[in-house]
């Protein structure tokens, strides 16, 4: 706030930063809520709705002397503008004077509301927005109270227009503020909404295929100031005032969006607590006030039909029988005792820190340190712990003079909110360089795009130094490198993270906010896995040297890895702690223990930016499921490892005492909040929309080694040997946001958007193999059942490479890059 200007609001003087929007300034500094419909603090002003009219003037100065002119009373004279002005299109300037509460202003507000209501249906009693509606609230506050309009002249329009499968438009309720249109264009960059016709016939349309084709559509329902846009998920589902808001963290990707689970006791759920919707919760450093549609609609798995509800033990017959917790834990303990220290664990990245600590303690008590992270696809976590983005990083601050490099990742599919925020960084003037082996959506926003040969990400990164782009990166004020692992082996992804880190070290972009490395790790808690000692390298070791007893927690090896059945055959006993009854539990587990999803218990995750964030209990447990930390802790108790902990908070106390990265972290600290700009989620829903104010905690960012002032040595970054193809094709698994993973499949309304299993094949390769676009092909790799998919020959894959999205069918696609043969399937 070096450059401030002095403005006067309702006779009070305020010093505010130059260049600030007047509506924002009045709200933030003067606590004066100027009513708005079209203005939104995250978007450019358009001045369409006229609701923000205020009396405006400037302090008069003598033109010759520059002195303030005084009136007869010695007060500075104000030159008022002849008419009311829109506050939202005004930038504060020195000597600006406004009045927001005069009769003239109140009359104007009443008139604007009256205009907006001429054709509004006023169907608040059946409207999803009723109770949290800006138009409703502003009508109560400023509206005329009675209508002067002839009912017979009211426009009658379509009330159920599907804009795609996820969002419905009520044409009667729309007040044409264009917030949704501008959000899609300015914030997201998917301009799939627009106005059609004009004047009184103006309507919102989408003409994309499928309709409203974007991963961010749900946000438009939050910022819609009326009930015109509603989600197919929540439509007519509940009234806002019946809902209890529970702060939570999205469990789907490494961004770690802060969300709020809206719950109520629901008739359709046996009178138990049911999650009715997922809403964004403001955390300006993580997700601002946005979430992607996967986060918004991907909550159904927490109560899917497939949830494992009882502890199961496999009898000699090979069948699983439901047992009590005592019996099941005894069976597990017996197997563990018999194995001695020949025990290993594989933990999925949906496990909370508390779960992971309990698992680590259990194995430590047995004398094993074999802690595998699942899926073992990305190795960057240990590099992030040293040179990750600095403490206090906010991608929303990147702009002119800064640079962002995205490599080996399809961010749109892997971490949508990072993609959204980095797109905006590019809009603000940051230099965005995107490097991939194939075209991705991020290319559309990049200043420069480099396509390298499949698997040669590290070489491409090392070669950057001789390219034109180098200067832009090296001289950037801030530099963020976002490294994925597409097309790379585990070693390759480690080398890539190392090479990226070396660039950051060399150009001195470490240990400070808004600079450093971001790894696009899989799942919500991959960084937590790292900090608690679970590594993908250990997983590969477990795959090669299987232990006698393997504890698998919240990881479906069979659906993720087509070779899993092959290497798991050498494991004597599998103890599975899982959310779901299908897959590994059903097919291979000797003992299966039901655990609670993120929505059923307290816990914490560490997001990709190393922020420890806390989630809270929103719904009751499914069946007899326990939190994984509790199940593991009780298992330890059976093995004589001491008394089980009683709460997740108590487990965190133990973590903080033992793991340096978590020093000072406690549930109480994680729950701390402070005022965030812009001030959304208050009772003035018209300003920011229905995103929730953060009441659950902003989290604590773990410092990197560089943040702590340690000298970080250069990393090994030898390029990976390209896979020996011997005439075969390179099979590159990729990630699709919408897929058939068990944590997303139960969200039925998104099904139409999940593509049929497919593989992208280069046209030259396809020609050689006699494959045409749309043919069914079989992909054969070693130690795995053949994968049957639809061939897409459409220019997406480089020559010699077949791109196979994971989790699109029940047959697993390869876990990591491999070689294989592709042939046209018979019949």
């Amino acid at each position, binding site marked *: 706030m070096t450059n401030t200007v002095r403005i006067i609001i309702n006779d009070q003087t305020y010093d505010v930063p130059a260049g600030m929007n007047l509506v924002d300034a009045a709200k933030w500094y003067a606590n004066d809520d100027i009513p708005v419909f079209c203005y939104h603090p995250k978007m450019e002003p358009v001045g369409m709705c006229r609701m923000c009219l205020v009396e405006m003037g400037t302090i008069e100065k003598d033109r010759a002397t520059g002195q303030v002119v005084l009136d007869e009373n010695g007060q500075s004279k104000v030159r008022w503008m002849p008419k009311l002005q829109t506050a939202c299109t005004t930038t504060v300037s020195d000597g600006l004077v406004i009045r927001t509460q005069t009769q003239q202003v109140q009359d104007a507000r009443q008139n604007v509301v009256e205009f907006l209501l001429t054709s509004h249906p006023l169907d608040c009693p059946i409207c999803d927005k009723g109770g949290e509606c800006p138009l409703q609230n502003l009508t109560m506050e400023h509206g005329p109270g009675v209508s002067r309009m002839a009912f017979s002249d009211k426009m009658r329009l379509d009330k159920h227009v599907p804009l795609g499968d996820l969002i419905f438009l009520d044409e009667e309720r729309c007040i044409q503020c264009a917030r949704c249109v501008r959000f899609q264009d300015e914030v997201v960059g*998917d*301009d*799939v*909404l*627009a*106005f*059609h*016709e*004009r004047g009184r016939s103006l309507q919102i*349309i*989408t*003409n*994309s*295929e499928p309709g409203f084709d974007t991963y961010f559509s749900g946000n438009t329902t939050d910022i819609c100031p009326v009930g015109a846009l509603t989600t197919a998920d929540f439509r007519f589902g509940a009234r806002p005032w019946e809902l209890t808001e529970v702060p939570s963290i999205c469990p789907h990707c490494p961004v770690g969006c802060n969300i709020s689970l809206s719950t109520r006791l629901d008739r359709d759920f046996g009178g138990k607590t049911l999650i009715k919707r997922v809403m964004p919760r403001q955390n300006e450093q993580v997700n601002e006030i946005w979430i992607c549609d996967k986060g918004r609609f991907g909550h159904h798995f927490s109560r899917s039909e497939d949830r494992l509800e009882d502890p199961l033990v496999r009898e000699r017959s090979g069948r699983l029988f439901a047992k009590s917790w005592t019996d099941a834990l005894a069976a597990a303990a017996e197997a563990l005792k018999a194995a001695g220290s020949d025990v290993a664990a594989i933990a999925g990245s949906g496990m909370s820190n508390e779960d992971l600590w309990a698992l680590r303690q259990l194995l430590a008590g047995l004398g094993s340190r074999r802690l595998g992270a699942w899926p073992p696809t990305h190795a960057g976590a240990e590099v992030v712990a040293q040179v990750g983005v600095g403490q206090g990083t906010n991608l929303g601050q990147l702009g002119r003079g800064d640079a962002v490099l995205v490599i080996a990742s399809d961010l749109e599919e892997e971490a949508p909110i990072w993609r959204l925020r980095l797109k905006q960084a590019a809009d603000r003037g940051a230099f965005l360089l995107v490097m991939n082996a194939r075209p991705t959506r991020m290319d559309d926003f990049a200043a420069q795009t480099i396509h390298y040969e499949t698997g040669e990400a590290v070489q491409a990164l090392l070669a950057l130094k001789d390219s034109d782009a180098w200067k832009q990166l090296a001289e950037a004020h801030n530099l963020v490198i976002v490294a994925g692992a597409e097309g790379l082996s585990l070693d390759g992804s480690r080398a890539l993270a190392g090479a990226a880190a070396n660039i950051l070290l060399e150009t001195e972009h470490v240990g400070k906010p808004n600079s450093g490395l971001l790894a696009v790790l899989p799942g919500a808690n991959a960084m937590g896995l790292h900090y608690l000692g679970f590594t993908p390298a250990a997983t590969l070791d477990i795959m090669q040297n299987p232990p006698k007893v393997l504890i698998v927690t919240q990881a479906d090896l069979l659906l993720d890895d087509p070779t899993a059945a092959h290497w798991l055959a050498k494991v004597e006993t599998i103890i599975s702690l899982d959310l779901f009854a299908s897959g590994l539990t059903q097919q291979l587990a000797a003992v299966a223990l039901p655990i609670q999803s993120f929505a059923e218990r307290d816990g914490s995750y560490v997001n990709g930016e190393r922020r420890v964030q806390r989630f809270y209990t929103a719904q009751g447990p499914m069946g007899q499921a326990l939190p994984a930390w509790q199940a593991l802790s009780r298992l330890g108790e059976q093995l004589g490892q001491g008394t089980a902990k009683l709460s997740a908070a108590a487990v965190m106390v133990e973590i903080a005492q033992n793991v340096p990265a978590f020093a000072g972290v406690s549930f109480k600290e994680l729950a701390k909040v402070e005022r965030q700009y812009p001030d959304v989620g208050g009772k003035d829903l018209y300003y920011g929309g229905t995103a929730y104010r953060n009441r659950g905690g902003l989290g604590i960012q773990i410092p990197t080694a560089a943040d702590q002032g340690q000298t970080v040595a250069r990393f090994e970054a030898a390029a990976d040997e390209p896979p020996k193809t011997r005439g075969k094709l390179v099979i590159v698994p990729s990630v699709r946001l919408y897929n058939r993973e068990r944590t997303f499949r139960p969200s039925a309304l998104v099904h139409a958007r999940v593509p049929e299993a497919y593989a992208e094949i280069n046209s030259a390769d396809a020609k050689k193999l006699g494959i045409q676009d749309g043919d069914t092909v079989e992909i054969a790799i070693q130690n795995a059942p053949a994968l049957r998919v639809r061939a897409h020959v459409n220019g997406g894959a480089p020559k010699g490479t077949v791109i196979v999205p994971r989790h699109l069918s029940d047959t697993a696609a390869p876990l990591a890059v491999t070689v294989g043969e592709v042939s046209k399937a018979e019949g």
Partner: protein
Amino acid sequence: MALSDKKYSQRIEAAFAKYPDKRSAVMPLLYLAQEEYGWVSPEGIQEVADLCDMDPTQVQSIAGFYTMYSEKPKGKYWLQVCTDLACALRGADEFYEELKAELGVEDGGTTEDGLFTVEHVMCLAACDKAPMLQCNFHFMENLDMDKMRAWIAEKRAEAAKAKK
């Protein structure tokens, strides 16, 4: 039937050559689509979107905003009669009523043979030559029903001949 037809390639290139970016050529290309299909059809919108590298939603939005693009199928001859005050003073409103009766259609309707679409429009800036109309963006001025009947018959004969 498409804008990819060779006969359009030169005009498409000319449209792109006029502007610094592709997006700006959307309006001339929409005219071409309308010429090709007789109206701005969904195929036309998609083709223009592909040509200009835009989302079809944005193209449709532009087609919807401007009245000279028709988003409904039209007859071969699109007759837009001005009935504003100045024209009405010279009998344009009566002329319009008679024209509709002659063709047996309502406002905005198309004749069964698919030849004529009639609608009334706002000022076309030829008040001194009323009654007047715009047929496929060309003015026909100082009209009366005798002239119109002869013209209609002529066009019908042409169409019948072309059919054979």
